């Protein structure tokens, strides 16, 4: 289970295609796609192997009109889902 001090990196094995302002990310097993729009793209772009999830959360709260508690819950649920799907990896492997 990921926590706010976790640092994530985009899985390099996942092809990504920009479409409009969204992204289609193809899971590494090659049969499933995931689409991201708006805040999902924002989070994805902040997952760079440098930012902790706390830093990503701070960026979300600064950018969007959302309460920190709600943003934290949603962020952790979102990144845990991405991690489970293999789209992101923990920076330490």
């Amino acid at each position, binding site marked *: 289970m990921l926590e706010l001090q976790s640092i994530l990196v985009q899985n390099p094995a996942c*092809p990504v*295609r920009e479409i*409009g*302002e*969204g992204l*289609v990310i193809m899971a590494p097993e*090659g049969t499933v796609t995931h*689409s991201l729009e708006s805040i999902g793209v924002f989070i994805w772009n902040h997952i760079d192997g440098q930012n902790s999830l706390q830093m990503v959360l701070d960026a979300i709260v600064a950018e969007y009109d959302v309460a920190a508690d709600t943003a934290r819950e949603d962020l952790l649920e979102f990144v845990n889902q991405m991690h489970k799907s293999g789209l992101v990896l923990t920076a330490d492997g």
Partner: protein
Amino acid sequence: MAGTEKQQCRLVVGDLVMDLNCYPPALADVLANWFIQEASDRPADLDLDLELVAHEDIPELPNSLLANKLVGSDGSFDVAGGLITGCLDRTGARGSIRPKATLARGRLLRILEQIFYQAFHSANTLRGGDACLVHSSAVIADGAGFLFVGPSGAGKSTVAQLSTNHHVLGDEMQLLAPEGEGFTVRSTPFNGTFRNKLPGQAPLRAIFILEQADAHRLTAIGPAEAASALAAEIVPPVGLDELPTPDTLPAMVEYAARILEYTPVWRLEFLPDPGFWEILATEFNLEIGDGPGDRSDQP
């Protein structure tokens, strides 16, 4: 081969023609009754010997004809541990498909159909074509083509059944091909549960991602979500003698993105009644009546 007498069945998918030389000969009649398709007297793009293989075992049926497939450097292929074998000679544009005989019976024909998706892609590649097969239902209304997509159970067949006032192209598999400044949607011989389909084609006007709901609603969706949903329903462009590669899924997403450059995609929530056509008529300014089907685009 056990005997030599064969009977031909033509399979016409868009502009591509595949001749299936069937053994036993009765197989050709089975397929002619199964496939609802356009006629064609064009020369074949691919010539295939289709020979049923007798067997005593009860084969295990796969969910996908791609997941458990082996190919050889000689153009040979083996699907699901011998369920369907064959080979492709690209130079000669010919080959063979040898399915176990059980696949030619009843509902199992829908599994056999899937090898013809791969045959289509082989023929498409040989001809340098740019069409794709999309798991979908499609209807022509007031001269415009509308494509309905979604996973199994989303309601593609239901939409077809609710659209008999219009020209239903089918509820299982349609062909999309670039034409002019857009795409054309065209019927294929491949079947779902809806048998009252009619061959035809029309300019593709819109695509709908289906969702069964408590009301008829049409809502816009983001382009990435649209591309992802559409790509999931594009038949992987894998030929008879090929396997999926790491480039296969990106190619499907890329094709979806191309379609989206010309065609809007909406989410269509619907009830099991034809009322959604009123919403579509308003949104797309369609002139549709209450009478018998709008059959203006038969070939």
